[in-house]
């Protein structure tokens, strides 16, 4: 016990003496949390909108006015011809071009139908999809208003069928993206710091040769490993704490669930990450190698965590792969507990899987750490 305590003490001393690492450990994650949470939004705003009005009637002007009124669109200009609109899109001056055909209003009144042509710049596919939805919504609103107008003109068949859906967004009523991004980004920061530090730590002792010196001592494997990893567990929890405080104070994220449960789960989760870090450490000879391998896993874990793209929309094989992604569980748990107030029974599957993962990874790590080669 004395030995473990001394190693922990030594690790903390080394962490706090490393003047270059301290800000990396504590300040950088906080800056990242603040910047990313404010910037990494999925909302599509300020869409550059252009139109070609071949009809030039009050109807067509009213339609354009609808876009003008929308907060999503910046109505830039009308183009005289489709050709000039095309070249404007090629130059990146406009993202969405709506072409209103000639006789738009006439057809609408006489034939009760008309077509609109819409061109969207789909270099960013995700944004293009969202833009399409926005445009459709506006056109639909316009449509229903026209129908009411036409009915008033006395056509009996045109019954107003106004079914309006009023969505209610549970657990995030204002659909504030920060509410679900902040817990996710916090998860990433805790993961990154603990994985990189633990992954590089044992390799560092290999590099400077102290590991060899330690290996000839009677120290037990478990003493060394616990002593090495415990400080990073503490570090991870400190990061979580600071992150939660920022989430509450700066972003005013609701914290509905039990804080205790969040910490309890985080401890199990960090054990998984530390196990992975130590495992990487055992199979590399330099900090550089360890860093690159840690990055490899980190990028896959992040992109397949469901934080940026929903797991449900991934191909089936990828969905199976995400079962082995610890970040996925942590993101789920953090969102469920923080936003929904989930209890232990709600997150039981995640807890069980993470615990199993922790046991397997640490078992592998201890097994692969050899004092003799």
């Amino acid at each position, binding site marked *: 016990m*004395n*030995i473990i305590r*001394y*190693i922990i003490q*030594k690790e903390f*001393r*080394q962490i706090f*003496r*490393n003047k270059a690492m301290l800000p990396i450990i504590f300040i950088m994650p906080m800056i990242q949390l603040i910047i990313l949470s404010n910037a990494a939004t999925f909302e599509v705003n300020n869409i550059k909108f252009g139109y070609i009005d071949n009809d030039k009637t009050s109807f067509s002007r009213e339609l354009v006015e609808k876009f003008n009124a929308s907060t999503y669109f910046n109505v830039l200009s009308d183009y005289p011809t489709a050709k000039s609109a095309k070249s404007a899109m090629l130059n990146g001056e406009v993202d969405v071009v709506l072409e209103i055909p000639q006789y738009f209003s006439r057809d609408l009144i006489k034939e009760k139908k008309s077509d609109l042509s819409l061109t969207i710049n789909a270099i960013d596919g995700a944004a293009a999809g969202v833009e399409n939805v926005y445009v459709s919504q506006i056109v639909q609103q316009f449509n229903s208003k026209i129908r009411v107008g036409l009915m008033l003109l006395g056509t009996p068949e045109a019954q107003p069928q106004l079914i309006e859906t009023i969505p209610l967004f549970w657990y995030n009523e204002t659909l504030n993206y920060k509410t679900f991004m902040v817990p996710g980004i916090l998860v990433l920061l805790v993961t990154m710091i603990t994985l990189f530090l633990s992954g590089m730590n044992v390799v560092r002792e290999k590099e*400077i*040769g*102290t590991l*060899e*010196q*330690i*290996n*000839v*001592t*009677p*120290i037990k494997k478990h003493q060394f490993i616990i002593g090495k990893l415990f400080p990073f567990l503490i570090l991870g929890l400190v990061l979580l704490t600071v992150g939660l405080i920022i989430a509450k104070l700066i972003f005013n994220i609701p914290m509905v669930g039990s804080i205790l449960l969040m910490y309890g789960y985080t401890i199990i989760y960090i054990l998984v990450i530390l196990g992975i870090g130590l495992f990487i450490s055992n199979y590399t000879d330099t900090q550089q190698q360890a860093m690159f391998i840690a990055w490899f896993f980190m990028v896959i874990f992040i992109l397949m965590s469901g934080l940026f793209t929903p797991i449900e929309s991934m191909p089936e094989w990828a969905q199976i792969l995400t079962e082995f992604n610890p970040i996925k569980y942590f993101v789920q748990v953090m969102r469920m507990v923080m936003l929904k107030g989930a209890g232990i029974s709600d997150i039981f599957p995640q807890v069980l899987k993470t615990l199993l993962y922790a046991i397997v990874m640490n078992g592998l790590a201890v097994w692969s750490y050899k*004092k*003799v*080669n």
Partner: protein
Amino acid sequence: MGISVKNISKSYDKVMALKDISFEVKPGELFGLIGPDGAGKTTLFRILTTLLIADKGEATVAGYNVIKEYKSIRNHVGYMPGRFSLYQDLTVEENLNFFATIFGTTIQENYDLIKEIYVQIEPFKDRRAGKLSGGMKQKLALSCALIHKPKVLFLDEPTTGVDPVSRKEFWEMLKRLQKKGITILVSTPYMDEAALCDRIALIQNGNILEIDTPEVIKNSFPKTLFKVKAAETFKLIQDLGSYELTHSAYPFGEYIHFTSNNVDFNAKDLVQYLESNGHTDIEVNETAPTIEDTFMELSK
């Protein structure tokens, strides 16, 4: 209770680092492993300190088998690797405390053993190990290797890269430790240090060439040795190389050490040969062989 090595072999992929090595180190002996870089010294150290498992053969350290009783060995040996491998970002005292703790002891408990060495670095005990001078680092490393009162001490090239004064001091410290009953196995590429050991083993390319006391090894030199000097050293080596009576000729300080393959060799013949080749300022004198000469002879 010392060290016993029997038929140890070890190869890395295709390179044989140690070839069927056997030797004994008596308890309380100061035993030197002398050989150039790449001779297999470090491999042997790693096997004896249980960091590496030999392909073949058996070895015991302080009476414990290196395979079966490796745990006991770790309690009873001190190891100072060739490279300085303490925590550079911890202070002198913290390093010493760290190693004392993982050996389950304290500085106070074994202070008498390290006292003579430690007092020299004690004024700097709050300095980070990375900021110490080479000689100081080495004293700290030795203190750390001694803190648990080992029965056997392994020192892998402890004086490489250390200034001559510190080297001399270091060997004096080893002599004192030996008097306290510690068996010491030390490796070095410096032949002059070999003379300070009780017995030495000359090792090259994974083979042991000779094991004996430095005195015996020096005297076992089979030929009459001459030191030769002339104005143009490079031409001298070339000419000696093509001389028909040459057995060996290699540079040794400012001289060339020369032996002849002729038992009745006369130095005057050599002077004559060199003069006929246009050398000036020729000096040819008989000289006493050193361990290095024996090593060169054995490794020929």
